[in-house]
């Protein structure tokens, strides 16, 4: 029987880890990491799970050890946040290119500077091209549900890629909210037993992991990795269907909220999507036809699917919670615009930057953006591209 409870996002993911009970968890358990490794190590100390916990001296080592354990044939994971992810950079690429189906529980927090600990997506967005599948959550429930779906996606033989389960730092990770938990047996059955096809500790079938690859073959390895990323889209949807059967909760590559007849759509990821949905309901009550497209899966990027979902509206606000200093908008906006152009969906697309380094994002911010889109469509004007929302000079909340 599912159990109603209340938990922070950190507690929710730690609980999911306990239920999945993977084989090995190397982690650097202090700042900038979160409570997740601490909570998991408490479960282990109390005998509630038997994962091998390895406290390492840095995130560079935690990801290295995760890869090593996974290569040996153990279901492995680690957890980190912010500059901890940055210190893993080199190994993130190795995990993906060596096709290690390990999992990383990420709490999204900003990268320095200025020195700041709060939420934005600069850590995972910086790692967007490392070959990891990336799945984002609106709240603690989704973070929990996404974690449970992570291994069945990663370990699928047509995928064999690492999965990053992302939740918003503090806003989700440290906020206590209601949650519905599956029972242990349901989770165990859903995730199944890990049976790696090839692994280092198998004397019957020797393999080498991570060898030098000469130019005659390395490009094929990269192409295979790219095919795996394409394959993962279908697997993510299949796992979501199976998850709906055990939980009653439906997931896809993205969620379309009141978009069916919408003139204007806000495309957004993470906790701010909840705020956007509330604002969307408020504006609908006033007669504005608006909707929200909440992107759940950023890698693989569902370009054609997003273009199709936006094809019926007049304008879209693309919301980035990460500055990538290209002088041309955030990463989400760049990829969405490219998807729209390639699929010949030539609607008004406006890039907005919000919530950097923990700047609050409110329903009033959403009203403002939808009103701006509406005016630009009605008056046939071009709104300012790449505008920062909630800057002090434009009036900071609070």
């Amino acid at each position, binding site marked *: 029987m599912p159990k109603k409870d*209340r938990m922070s996002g950190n507690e929710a993911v730690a609980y999911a880890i306990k239920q999945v009970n993977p084989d090995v968890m190397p982690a650097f358990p202090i700042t900038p990491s979160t409570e997740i490794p601490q909570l998991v190590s408490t479960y282990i100390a109390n005998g509630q799970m038997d994962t091998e916990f390895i406290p390492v001296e840095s995130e560079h080592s935690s990801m290295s050890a995760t890869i090593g354990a996974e290569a040996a044939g153990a279901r492995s994971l680690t957890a980190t946040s912010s500059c901890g992810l940055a210190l893993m950079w080199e190994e993130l690429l190795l995990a993906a290119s060596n096709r290690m189906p390990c999992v990383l529980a990420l709490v999204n927090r900003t990268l320095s500077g200025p020195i700041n600990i709060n939420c934005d997506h600069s850590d995972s967005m910086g790692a967007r091209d490392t070959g990891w599948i990336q799945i984002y959550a609106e709240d603690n429930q989704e973070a929990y549900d996404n974690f449970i779906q992570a291994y069945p996606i990663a370990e699928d033989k047509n995928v064999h890629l690492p999965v990053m389960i992302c939740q918003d730092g*503090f806003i989700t990770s440290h906020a*206590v909210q209601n949650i519905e938990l599956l029972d242990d047996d349901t989770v165990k059955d859903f995730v199944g037993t890990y049976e790696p096809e090839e692994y280092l500790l198998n004397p019957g079938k020797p393999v080498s992991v991570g060898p030098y690859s000469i130019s005659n073959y390395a490009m094929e390895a990269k192409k295979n990795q790219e095919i795996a990323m394409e394959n993962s889209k279908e697997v993510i949807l299949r796992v979501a269907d199976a998850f709906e059967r055990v939980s009653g909760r439906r997931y896809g590559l993205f969620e379309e909220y009141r978009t069916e007849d919408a003139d204007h759509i806000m495309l957004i990821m993470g906790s701010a999507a909840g705020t956007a949905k509330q604002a969307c309901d408020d504006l609908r009550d006033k007669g504005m036809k608006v909707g929200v497209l909440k992107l759940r899966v950023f890698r693989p990027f569902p370009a054609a699917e997003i273009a199709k979902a936006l094809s019926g509206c007049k304008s879209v606000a693309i919301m980035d919670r990460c500055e990538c200093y290209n002088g041309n908008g955030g990463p989400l906006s760049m990829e969405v615009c490219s998807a729209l152009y390639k699929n010949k969906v030539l609607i008004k697309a406006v890039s907005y930057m919000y919530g950097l380094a923990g700047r609050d*994002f409110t329903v009033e911010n959403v009203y403002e953006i939808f009103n701006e889109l509406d005016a630009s469509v009605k008056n046939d004007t071009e709104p300012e591209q790449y505008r920062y929302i909630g800057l002090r000079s434009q009036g900071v909340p609070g």
Partner: protein
Amino acid sequence: MSQGLEIRWHGRGGQGAKTAALLLADVAFKTGANVQGFPEYGPERMGAPITAYNRISRDRIRVHSNIYTPDLVVVVDETLLHSVDVTAGLKEDGAIIVNTPRTATEIAGLLNGYKGRVYTVDARRISVDTLGKNFPNSPMLAAAVAVSRVMDKESFIREMRTSYEHKFSKKPEVIEGNMKALTMTFEELEPYLKQA
């Protein structure tokens, strides 16, 4: 959807305002409500002003921003009245509770002309009398429940005993003192709540 009840806590790092907000979320959850309890993190150091928030609603809570127009404000440290605009956005039909030995009338004059209900609780005295130390968050939590009426006194006291037994499983000697702090706060506030 109505936002239900929105509460903003003002305290100083180390006084337990964040813990009080999380405990309030915890007990409100047990009444079947949808809850949110979250701190706003600034510089993490003892004594720095901190803010924490609660949303309590019948409906699912989707908004993840801070709270700018609270129904209730709880001030765990009265020295904040000089440095923080604690009544900012506070609804006129809402209320504020301040931890102070002074009367509500005396405090009302320090609240930038706030016209709503003002309550005071001498949480330091209650805490020292019941626990022997100044831990103002238990009395302030009881005051928040008494004033907001998110749940009745009996269920609150019952649920808090369970919460404390869990939270203080390694130091059970502080449970009775905390329970006494809760009931004492309710008793001291009751005459004022009846007037409202």
